[in-house]
């Protein structure tokens, strides 16, 4: 069976759904980060696949950008996470409601 673009896109959609489910359900901030990484990488897979099949290099460039941005986002986010844990002894979202309006 030949692997076509649709298979890749299906994989990307599956990954995206998993990521989305994680974003909605997870209460642990660390897990939330993982879920958002899955979301970003679902997009990366889709971009790389479309780029390959349409012979357009721009999609892969975009994927690289996303990887770079995701890396820096994780670096900053984890820094905050550690600070938060030190201050509040918890990374559970239900305990972080200081922005209640």
């Amino acid at each position, binding site marked *: 069976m030949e692997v076509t673009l649709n298979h890749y896109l299906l994989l990307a959609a599956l990954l995206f759904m998993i990521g*989305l489910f994680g974003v*909605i359900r997870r209460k642990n901030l660390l897990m939330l980060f993982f879920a958002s990484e899955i979301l970003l990488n679902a997009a990366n897979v889709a971009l790389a696949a479309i780029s390959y099949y349409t012979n357009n290099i721009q999609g892969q460039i975009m994927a690289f950008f996303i990887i770079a941005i995701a890396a820096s986002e994780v670096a900053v986010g984890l820094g905050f996470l550690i600070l938060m844990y030190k201050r509040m002894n918890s990374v559970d*979202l239900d305990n*972080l409601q200081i*922005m*209640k309006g």
Partner: protein
Amino acid sequence: MEKILLIALFAPLAGSVFAALFGENKKTLVAGVIPSLFLVIGTACSLYLLTVVMSGTVVKATLFEWIAAGNVSIDFGFVADQISVVMMCVVTIVSTMVHIYSIGYMSHDEGFNRFFSYLSLFVFSMMVLVMSDNFAGLFIGWEGVGLCSWLLIGFWYKKPFATWAANEAFIMNRIADLAMLMGMALLFWNIGSLKYDIVFAHAKLVDAHTLTIAAALLFIGAMGKSAQFPFHTWLADAMEGPTPVSALIHAATMVTAGVYLVIRAHDIFILTADVSYFIACLGTFVAAFAATMGLVNRDLKRIIAYSTLSQLGYMFVAAGIGAYWVALFHLMTHAFFKALLFLGAGNVMHAMHDELDIKKMGGLYKVMKPTAIMMILASIALAGIYPFAGFFSKDKILEVAFATDHKVLWLSLLATAGLTAFYGFRLIMLVFFGKENYKEFFPKLHPHEAYPYMLYAMAPLAVLAVIAGFFEESLIALLEKAMPIFEPHISSGEFFMLIGVTTTLVVSAIAFTIYKYSKGGFSPSLENSTIYKLLFNQYYIPELYDRFLVKPYTRMSDFAWKQIDLKIIDVVVDSIARTIYSSGEKSRDSVQSGNLSKMLRWMVAGLIVLLAFAFLYSIAVS
């Protein structure tokens, strides 16, 4: 020439604005002097215009197009023609004198500057009223004088009754003005213009029935402004204002605006004989009705106010019969002697420290001779004795009534002339002669004459009250270009008989009054008689109004406020607001919970909604 007209019109406004600049300051003499000077300019311009109009030219000025909507086109125009120029002269002369007088009269009042601002504004409104060349401008002036009247009656706003009287005057005038506005609308509807020239030229073409209704509505407006029955109660109560105001507004000028309207619109009233006859009858009734109330009243100013009402009745009789020039003539002479009478009353009030009960005065002739002499002159003019001004105009009205076979009206007016002489001299006798009652009531009071310049301001009016009757010929010569001159056709024998009867009656009434009051007046037991009580309580009309109009209306308003407004309208509006508020409160609690997890869910939900939209849109486009 146009400029002179505009100067005459706007000089009082300039004076008013000038005085208003000092409105918040302490009393400044200049705030009284400058408006008076502006009025002198206005008077000079008016008199000059009088000479111009007498030579046969009508001066017109159009400031700008005022209302232009669809086929409605009303210019802001002014005119000095034969009728308005007479009014302009009367208004400016009397107001100038009253302004100068007021500088002295109001000199101890803390509202001095404010007073002059209002007074000049009144003169401006009155000038707009008389000079406008269309009904709309007349109405502006009409409302303007109403406003100034309200401001000035309630000038001493700390007195509860003064504010009450001001409101009464304003509200009664509003009721009548509604009718007038409707009359104007009816004319406009049928003719398509409000300009006098056009309206009067086309009045004949209007259906007679419609024209009668329009004339009646206009006359109801005139009744309100001229305080004719049943709108008469406000005029006596308006005496709560400062006395110069009573002299200027409630005797000489504003209350005669109703007569002016009838004279101005004589082309319409000539065509509506029924309305004119009603005017004459109502005028006769009010003349007698008001004179009887003046007989017994003890309030110095109210007596003069009833006299004004009565004289306005005379003017309406003349206008109703069709002798419009006689109405204007009596309006003019009346303005002079009645303003003089009021200003004299002001001097008496100053001397008596604002006491108004004439039974508590007496013997003031000794201490205030000039005032007494001028008031006696004014009273003789009011009674109508040759050669004083009142003789010429009032006898003319009687003559006209006699000549047109309105014998009942004539008899009633004749009797009223006797009553006029009686109450006029009753006032003089009780105030200036007889026992010095004030020494008993106010032992510490030392009455003194007013400032000399106040007397000088009264002097021109006194001169005019004496000689104004001799202007009859020139007035006829002036007015014959503007209106049909009504000359009563009676033989010279009848003419002298009429004069003889009237003069005899008036002189004997005066003689009787002087005799009776020099003997100490009527016995007090008369005060217990029914008729005295009826007259003294003004025929119980104010009480009837209070009981059958004011009280039910107050109850109705109370009901509307407490039951309809508070319980229905407010509740509905409040519940709408409360629903919106509480729904906002609830949604804020769920959205702005501060829980990141929930927010993310909202975000996802938003994303799904947007995707759905995009999907549906793409379907719709393809």
